[in-house]
C-alpha cells in the first residue's frame, strides 16, 4: 500500500507564522503604532500651539510642526515612508506654508525624474537578464578558489551597485549566493564561509551603492533638496569623485574584516564552479536584445559622465528609457513590477518639505538650536552630521535619514559659512552605510534571512566597519574634498 499523496494546490495560508511570545509582549508591540501616531499628532499640535520661538517666523513654526510630525513618523515607521511624505504634501498647502502650486511643482523636481529613469534602466537590466549574465561572468572568470570566489562575489556586488540600485542588486545576487552556499553544503549558522558569502553580498552592495548616483535614491534626493535650497548641484562625475576614496577604503577594510572574522573553512569550490557553469550554459549566447540594451547603458553612462551637467541627469536617463521603448526592447508591463513607484512619492514629498523648511527659515532655526550648540567649527559640524547619519541609518530607511537631516544640514551650512554643496555628500554618503543590523537595509535583511548568519555575525564586524567608515568619511571630507574643489569653507 502506498503512502497517501500530498494535496495539490497552494494553501492560502502558506505565508503565515505564529507569534508565540507572551500576549502582553505582542500587545505592547502592537500598541507601538497607535502610540507613535498619537505621539506624532501631539508633537505637531504642541509645536503649532506653542508661542512662536525667537528667531522663527509663524510660517517657519508651521513648517517646523510638519517636519516634527514627519520626523516622528519617519523614525518610528508608524506609517509607510511614502504616506508620511504624502502627509507632508497635504499639510504644506493646507497650513499655508506653501501654496498648492508651489508644493506640487516641487514634486516635479529633476531628482525625482532622475530616480525614475534610473529605476527603469535598472529594471531593464534585470528583466532582460543582462545583470545576471554579468554577475555570472564575473564569478565564472575569477571565482575558482574559495578566497577568489568570495572576493569576486564581494566586488561583483559592489561593481553592479555602481550602476543599479543596491537593493535590486542584493535581490538579484541573493539566489546565486544561496545556491553556491547550498551546493557547497555549508551548514547554516556554522560555516564561516557561508557567513562570509552573505556578508560579502550585503556589504558589497552597500559600499558600491554610494559610489555613484545610481546606487540608490539617497544621493539624487540630497541633490534635489540642495538644488531647491541653493540652486547648486553635482554632476555624475563630481559625485563619484567625491565618494570614491570612501568606497576604496571600505572595500579594502570590508574585505579584511570579512577574512578576519570569518576565516575560510573550506578547501574547494569546485561544486560551485559547476553550478555557475550550468547557469551560464542555460543562459546561452547573449541575444541581440541584451547587446542593444548593454550598448544603451554604456552610452547613457558615457553621456552622464561627459555631458550630464549640460543635458541634465534626468534628461539623459529618460532619453535612454525612451530609446529602449522606441527600439521595442521591452514592454511597459515588463518594467512595472521592478519600479518602486512609492519611493518616487516619498522623494517628492521630502523635497517639498525640505524646501518649505528652507524658505521659511525653519531649517536655519533648527540648526541654531541643535548642532550649532555642540559644534564650534565646520570640521565638528561634518563629524556630528555624519555620525548622526551613520547611526540613524542603522534603524531607519536611508532615504528617510536624508529627508530628515538634509534640511537641518543646509541650515547649518548657512550659519557656519560653509559651502551648502558639501552637505549633500555629508548627509547622503553616511546614510548609505548601515552594516550592523538586518533592518538597516534590504541587503542586510536578505543576508540575514538566508539563515546562514546569526545577529552577532553581522553586529560585531559591522560595528567595526561602521567605525572605519565614519573615520574614512571625515578624513576624506577634511583632506580630500578641498582638493577637488569642495572645501568645507569656501575660500
Amino acid at each position, binding site marked *: *500500500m502506498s*503512502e*497517501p*499523496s*500530498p*494535496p495539490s*494546490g497552494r*494553501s*492560502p*495560508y*502558506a*505565508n*503565515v*507564522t*505564529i*507569534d*508565540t511570545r507572551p*500576549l502582553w509582549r*505582542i*500587545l505592547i508591540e*502592537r500598541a507601538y503604532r497607535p502610540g507613535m501616531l498619537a505621539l506624532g499628532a501631539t508633537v505637531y499640535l504642541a509645536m503649532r500651539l506653542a508661542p512662536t520661538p525667537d528667531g522663527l517666523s509663524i510660517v517657519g513654526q508651521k513648517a517646523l510642526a510638519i517636519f516634527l510630525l514627519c520626523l516622528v513618523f519617519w523614525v518610528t*515607521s508608524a506609517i509607510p*515612508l511614502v504616506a508620511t511624505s504624502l502627509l507632508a504634501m497635504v499639510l504644506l498647502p493646507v497650513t499655508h506654508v506653501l501654496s498648492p502650486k508651489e508644493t506640487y511643482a516641487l514634486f516635479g523636481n529633476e531628482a525625482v525624474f532622475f530616480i525614475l529613469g534610473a529605476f527603469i534602466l535598472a529594471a531593464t537590466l534585470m528583466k532582460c537578464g543582462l545583470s545576471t549574465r554579468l554577475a555570472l561572468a564575473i564569478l565564472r572568470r575569477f571565482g575558482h578558489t574559495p578566497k577568489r570566489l568570495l572576493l569576486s562575489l564581494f566586488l561583483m556586488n559592489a561593481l553592479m551597485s555602481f550602476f543599479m540600485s543596491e*537593493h535590486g542588486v542584493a535581490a538579484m545576487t541573493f539566489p546565486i549566493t544561496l545556491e553556491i552556499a547550498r551546493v557547497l553544503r555549508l551548514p547554516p549558522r556554522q560555516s564561516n564561509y557561508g557567513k562570509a558569502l552573505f556578508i560579502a553580498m550585503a556589504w558589497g552592495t552597500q559600499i558600491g551603492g554610494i559610489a555613484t548616483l545610481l546606487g540608490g535614491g539617497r544621493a539624487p534626493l540630497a541633490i534635489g533638496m540642495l538644488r531647491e535650497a541653493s540652486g547648486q548641484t553635482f554632476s555624475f562625475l563630481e559625485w563619484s569623485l567625491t565618494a570614491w576614496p570612501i568606497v576604496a577604503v571600505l572595500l579594502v577594510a570590508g574585505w579584511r574584516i570579512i577574512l578576519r572574522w570569518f576565516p575560510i573553512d573550506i578547501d574547494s569550490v569546485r561544486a560551485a564552479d559547476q553550478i555557475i557553469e550550468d547557469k551560464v550554459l542555460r543562459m546561452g549566447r547573449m541575444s541581440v536584445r541584451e547587446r542593444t540594451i548593454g550598448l544603451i547603458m554604456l552610452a547613457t553612462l558615457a553621456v552622464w559622465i561627459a555631458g550630464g551637467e549640460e543635458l541634465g541627469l534626468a534628461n539623459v536617463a529618460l532619453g535612454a528609457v525612451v530609446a529602449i521603448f522606441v527600439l521595442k526592447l521591452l514592454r511597459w508591463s515588463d518594467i512595472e513590477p521592478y519600479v518602486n513607484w512609492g519611493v518616487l512619492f516619498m522623494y517628492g514629498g521630502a523635497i517639498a518639505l525640505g524646501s518649505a523648511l528652507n524658505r521659511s527659515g525653519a531649517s536655519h532655526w533648527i540648526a541654531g538650536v541643535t548642532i550649532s550648540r555642540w559644534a564650534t567649527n565646520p570640521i565638528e559640524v561634518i563629524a556630528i552630521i555624519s555620525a548622526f547619519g551613520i547611526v540613524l541609518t542603522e534603524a531607519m*530607511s536611508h532615504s528617510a535619514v536624508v529627508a530628515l537631516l538634509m534640511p537641518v544640514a543646509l541650515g547649518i551650512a548657512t550659519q557656519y559659512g560653509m559651502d551648502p554643496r558639501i552637505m549633500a555628500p555629508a548627509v547622503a554618503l553616511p546614510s548609505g552605510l548601515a552594516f550592523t543590523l*538586518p*533592518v538597516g*537595509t*534590504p541587503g542586510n*535583511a*536578505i543576508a540575514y*534571512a538566508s539563515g546562514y548568519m546569526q545577529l552577532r555575525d553581522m553586529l560585531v564586524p559591522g560595528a567595526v566597519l561602521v567605525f572605519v567608515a565614519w573615520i574614512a568619511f571625515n578624513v576624506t571630507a577634511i583632506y580630500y574634498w578641498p582638493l577637488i574643489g569642495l572645501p568645507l569653507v569656501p575660500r
Partner: protein
Amino acid sequence: MNPVELKIALATRGVRLDDHLRALLSSVPDFTPGALELLLPEDVRVRVPFDDATSTTAPYAVVGEDGRTFVIDADVLRVEVEAGVMPRFYGRRTASGRPMWQVATVEGSYLLVSPTGTCGFSTRGAPCAFCREGARPVGERDRAASIADVVDVVRAAFEEGVADSVLFNANVYDAEDGGIAFLTPYVEGIRKHFDTFVAAQVHPPRTNTWIDRTYAMGVDAISYNLELFDPGVLDRHCIGRARYIGRERYLEALAYAASVFPAGTVWSDLVLGLEPADATIAGIEALAGMGVVPVLSVYHLGPDMIPQVTPDEAAEVVGRLERAVRERKLVVAWIRDLTLGITPLDACRLTGSTPPGSATVQALTRWRLGAYAARGIARFRRRLRVKAISDSLDSSHL
C-alpha cells in the same frame, strides 16, 4: 452510581431500548442512528451505542415511563436521564438535495461536521479503516459534501438552536498536511458565514507550518488523537496512524500545537480499555506535561470482547486524569461535552474537585453575551498572533 462511572459503563456496554424510544429514533427517513445521546445527572453527556448485538446482551436498558426516561439494570439501578431529542434538521435536505444528517450530527453542544466520514474512536466509538488497516476510503473526496451543503446544515442547526459550535472531523488523510488542507475551504466557509467556535480533529501534519496555517485559517481548537500511548498496542490497533504518522510525530505536533493555540484548546484522545491502564496513565502524564488536554475516549466493546482494564483500573485512570490536569494547571473547560470521551471536566465530577479556570470559561461561553465576548477574544488573539511573512519583510523596509 456516579454519573461519570455510569457514562463509562453505558458507553462501553451499550443499552437496550424500549420500543417507544426506538420509534423516536427512527423518525428520520433513511437515518438509523447507532447511538442514543443521554444527558445524565450533573450535565454529563454520553452517547450510548445500541445495535442488534447490544439489544439483547447489554446489561442496561433505557426505558420511558410517564414522559420520563430512566436508565435501569437488572439490579437496583434506576437513574433518571434525558434522552437527546432528534434534531429537526436531520429530516431536511440541503439545497443540493443531500440529507442533512449525512453532513453533520449534533454531539453534545457542538455540531460534528464530517464532509466525508469520520475518523477516530471518539466520534465513531470504534476504529475506522485508516486506523484499523491503514486504508483510505476509496473516492472519499468525490463523495464529499460541498461547502454550500455544509453551510446549509450549520445554518439549519444553529437556527434550530441545537448546537453552538462546530467540530470538523474527516477521514481524508494526506501525508503532508494530515487532512487539514482538505478541510480548509470548509473552515473558511464557516468562518465567512458564522460567528462561532471551530474545532478540528485531524491527523498531525508532517511539518509544523501546517499547524500555524490551521490556527491562521480560523480553527480555534485542535485535536490530533494519538488514541494509544503504548507503541506496541498502537502498532496493532492503529496501523494507519503508526505507519504513516508515527507516535513521535503525534507527540511533537501536539507539543507544538499547544504553543500555538490558546491554553486548553489542544486535546488528544487516549482510548480507555484497549491498552493496559499503566500505558494510558503514562500517556495522560505525557500529554498533560506538554500542555495538551488528555481525553479518555470510551471504546464500545463488542459482546465477546474483554476489556484490558478492570472497572477499578478505569476509575484509577480517570482519577489520574483529574490529578494530572490539576497539577499542571491546565485549562480544561474548553474541551467538554464530548459524548464518547471522558474529559478532564468529567474526571473532576468523578473525584468531586473543581478544575482550575473552568468557572471563568463556562461563564464566558454559557451566556450569549459571554460567548460573544469569548469569540471576540479568540479573534483578537488570532489577529495578534498570526503574522504574514510579508509583514516581517515590510518591517525591514524591503
